[in-house]
């Protein structure tokens, strides 16, 4: 198939929205990393920066939605073009949610700074955040390179994140049972872990969009089930 549209402005528009998604993805990736760093380093200033940076992410999502709406109205995309526009809109929504979770982590870091430090938990949480960050990077690569295999790989890796979350959950439970003073920070940390786990789910959703974009249908195998809380 020829890559170029007869109407070249159509190509420019399509490339434009995808570039914006990549830019947004970059910002979100950075937000996850910095939110995790701020948490480990108990760096309030960095946390504030992450919270402020979310505004740019929200603005980008709005911009992408507007561009997509225009593109649909003006160019009536079909087939792969339509799928690009639809997946871009969904990916932008997912990225925005991930950005919100990062912001929420930063917010909780600002609170945690003034509390007792929970030993060991930070490192695990940071590893988890790092894993999500990697997944996001990979899924964005998969998106821009139309790489279904990489996207499927990301889908599978989400299970690892879920397991990490389950482990952390038990760890926090133990801390709280051992010492009631840890209840408040552990609750905050647990929410941060949950946020990270949700980020992973959104990354998974993006990976699904990539598969849909390339193949025209959603991945056949049902997505790895979310955490069962019967433990």
């Amino acid at each position, binding site marked *: 198939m020829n890559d*170029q549209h007869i109407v070249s402005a159509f190509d420019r528009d399509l490339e434009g929205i995808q570039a914006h998604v990549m830019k947004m993805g970059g910002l979100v990736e950075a937000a996850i990393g910095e939110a995790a760093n701020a948490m480990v380093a108990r760096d309030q200033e960095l946390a504030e920066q992450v919270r402020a940076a979310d505004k740019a992410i929200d603005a980008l999502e709005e911009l992408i939605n507007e561009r997509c709406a225009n593109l649909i109205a003006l160019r009536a995309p*079909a*087939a792969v073009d339509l*799928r690009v526009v639809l997946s871009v809109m969904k990916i932008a929504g997912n990225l925005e949610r991930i950005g919100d979770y990062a912001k929420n982590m930063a917010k909780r870091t600002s609170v945690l700074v003034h509390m007792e430090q929970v030993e060991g938990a930070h490192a695990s949480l940071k590893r988890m955040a790092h894993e999500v960050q990697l997944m996001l990077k990979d899924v964005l690569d998969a998106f821009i390179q139309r790489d279904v295999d990489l996207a499927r790989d990301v889908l599978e890796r989400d299970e690892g994140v879920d397991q990490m979350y389950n482990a952390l959950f038990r760890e926090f439970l133990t801390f709280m049972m051992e010492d009631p003073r840890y209840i408040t920070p552990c609750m905050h940390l647990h929410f941060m872990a949950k946020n990270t786990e949700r980020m992973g789910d959104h990354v998974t959703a993006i990976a699904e969009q990539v598969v849909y974009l390339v193949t*025209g249908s959603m991945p056949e195998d049902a997505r790895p089930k979310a955490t069962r809380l019967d433990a």
Partner: protein
Amino acid sequence: MYDTEKLGTDVNQTETKISARNVQVYYGDTHAIKDVNVDIDAKSVTAFIGPSGCGKSTFLRCINRMNDTIDVCRVEGDIKIDGEDIYDKRVDPVQLRAKVGMVFQKPNPFPKSIYDNIAYGPRIHGLAKNKADLDEIVEKSLRRGAIWNEVKDRLHAPGTGLSGGQQQRLCIARAVATEPEVLLMDEPCSALDPIATAQVEELIDELRDQYSVVIVTHSMQQAARVSQKTAFFHLGNLVEYGDTSQIFTNPKDERTESYITGRIG
């Protein structure tokens, strides 16, 4: 979650009205249609799309043997309507064309009154026993053509005095007046403005519950809007045939994809 597989089989369960097997059309030495196989559903709208000169109109005109009027045109293969081969020696094209009505690209009412335009077909086929019968057929056809309310007070005004969109609906009404089972439409909206086009599209959608409609269109959006199934022709080949929603969201063939997304194909 919907079971898309099951939906798909439901669509396939509808009755086949027209079935074409290994159809070849030659214009003199030019091989215009190459080995086309297609099953067209009864009581649904099937759209033929494709770039200019791809053979979609030629194939459409095979279905009511309008190509017979062209000396150098030769058709091979089988086209069956309700299982009967329409190129059989026993088939009279005139009789066939009463069963397979046609609407053309340019609205072409006869330069006669609106009434006579509709009444002509029933008259030559002897469908009306008397004047009252004929009046009834005319009214019914005009209603089915969704134009009755606009013309009922001036049935004896010339049909050529109507607007383009009205003329085209008049032509559709004229085509349904002979009680056809299949309606062929050759780019019926290409000469119409968007409002008239929308009216004709609405009409096509209504006609679907009584007729098998086959429409050739240059507007992919129109094919997407009115049809249940879409066939994409390219250089005389039937490249892809499937449910319209599938063709327009996720075509299987690269040529189809290139064409419907507006890339050089």
